[in-house]
């Protein structure tokens, strides 16, 4: 005699709903954590390279590296010794804030006191020839326009500061509450990371001799509800971190120059 089949218990409608949708919710929760994160540093390098090629009017001839060019670079000698007149050109796309500019300009007083510079001043963007705003990185043509701008102010040496920043936005598990609307304000489901990179060369205005090369990075991260996600939360700390390190290195390199 065949055994009777087990009788399936029938649950309430709420239980059925939970059993069906709970896995979906868990899956969405887990997927939120799978969002791509991290900076694509390869892309940064590619972007810089593209800018360099695009902004060089004499491409590809300008970029052609010959043995003669290497020998010429080896033979290039510094034209001045401290104290020199130092101009500083800031990347116009960087959006340096008034506070940051104040801080940078204040370096001049310290450098003068140490006998490293005789004068320290900004090289404004509007005295530079060539493309404005769409500044490329260290293409020969772009560097020459910065040197020409500095020469118009009779600078001996120019510090050319370039900036690149990347924002990385990605959700976390809490973002599943965003469809509840109130979750947009309450659930901390959005990450925002910022990488801020400063690179700068200290160039001889007369012959493009490079006295020093500096790079610094700052990173900041924040987790907020999506409504409160803002660049103002990550950019200032990332910039400050990069600028702190940059300042320290800048003074160290210039002091080394004086000690030579």
């Amino acid at each position, binding site marked *: 005699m065949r055994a009777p089949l087990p009788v399936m218990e029938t649950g309430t409608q709420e239980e059925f709903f939970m059993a069906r949708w709970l896995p979906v919710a868990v899956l969405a929760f887990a997927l939120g954590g799978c969002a791509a994160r991290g900076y694509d540093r390869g892309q940064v390098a590619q972007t810089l390279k593209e800018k360099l090629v695009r902004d060089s009017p004499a491409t590809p001839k300008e970029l052609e590296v010959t043995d003669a060019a290497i020998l010429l670079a080896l033979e290039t000698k510094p034209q001045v010794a401290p104290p020199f007149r130092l*101009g500083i050109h800031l990347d*116009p*796309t960087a*959006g340096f*804030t*008034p*506070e940051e*500019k*104040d801080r940078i*300009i204040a370096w001049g007083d310290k450098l003068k006191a140490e006998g490293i510079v005789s004068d320290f*001043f*900004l*090289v*404004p*963007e*509007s*005295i*530079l*020839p*060539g*493309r*404005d*705003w*769409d*500044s490329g990185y260290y293409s020969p*043509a772009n560097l*020459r*326009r910065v*040197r*020409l701008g500095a*020469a*118009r*102010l*009779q600078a001996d040496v120019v510090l050319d500061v370039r900036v690149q920043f990347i924002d990385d936005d990605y959700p976390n598990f809490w973002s599943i509450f*965003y*469809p509840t*609307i*109130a979750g*947009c*304000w309450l659930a901390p489901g959005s990450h925002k990371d910022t990488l801020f990179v400063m690179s700068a060369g200290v160039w001889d*205005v*007369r*012959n*493009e001799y490079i006295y020093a090369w500096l790079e610094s990075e700052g990173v900041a991260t924040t987790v907020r509800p*999506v*409504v*409160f*996600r*803002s*660049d*103002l*939360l990550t950019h200032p700390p990332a910039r400050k971190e990069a600028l702190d390190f940059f300042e320290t290195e800048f003074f160290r390199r210039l002091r080394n120059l004086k000690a030579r």
Partner: protein
Amino acid sequence: MIRIAAALLALAVLSACAARGYDRGPVTPKPLGKYEEPEITDEGVLAALTRTPAPPARNRIVVYFDDGSIQNDLKRANRFLPFAQRHSVLPLDCGVEPFQHFNNNSACPAFNRLKAAPFTESLYGPSLSEIYSQNSKGPLSETYYQSAISLLREFGKSREANLVVHYNANLRLYIQQTLFSVTRLGLVTGIFFPLEESRLDLTAELTVWDISSDALVYAASQTASRHDTRFPGGYDPYSVSSLYMETVDRLTEKSLPGIAQALATGKPRSEYFSSRR
């Protein structure tokens, strides 16, 4: 129907949650044509190092306010677009009108300061069309500042002027939501609360050029910031223009001694003026 209505409502509110703010990219210069900058050579750099201005004690000056950057900035922030299309930001227009017009415009205190400076004999503010009419090199280029200054020099020669004074300014706008933005949930209640706070950073630059020697006489920049709390309805563009006018006025006032000194010594000079000093 209820579900559809709820979904539509959710979509509408979610759209209000979209990240908003500003485009941090560079301001696009005016696409003005084919004028080509002279090639920059090492010899040109060395020549610039030795070039010194030699203007007289009193000067015939051509002055020009470039409002293009500000206008572009405003247009790039989408919420300002309707305003920017309907009106030019009023005080900024003084720079592109002929002298006779904006001499009487009380919104141009910077211009009047320059006019009253001891080193000024006469002052002329050309209109864009007047500048273009002097252009023998073809249309202006996208390399806006320098080609504009180049044309101003040509214009100045035709008026027997010997100095060009050029102003430009750049603006950055930052916006973030306040805690009050949660009142957007109430849709109507939201209008009574400051939903956003913003920060404007502005840098104005002034350059003075000797027409005959093509030498830079003086360069200065002035920074300024303004913090605002924003109610729904967007940012007040007059706040931008008033900040611009205040800043160029302050820049001019602080620059006058430096310009006089550069003219007297024949040595180019660059100054930076902080918003906090």
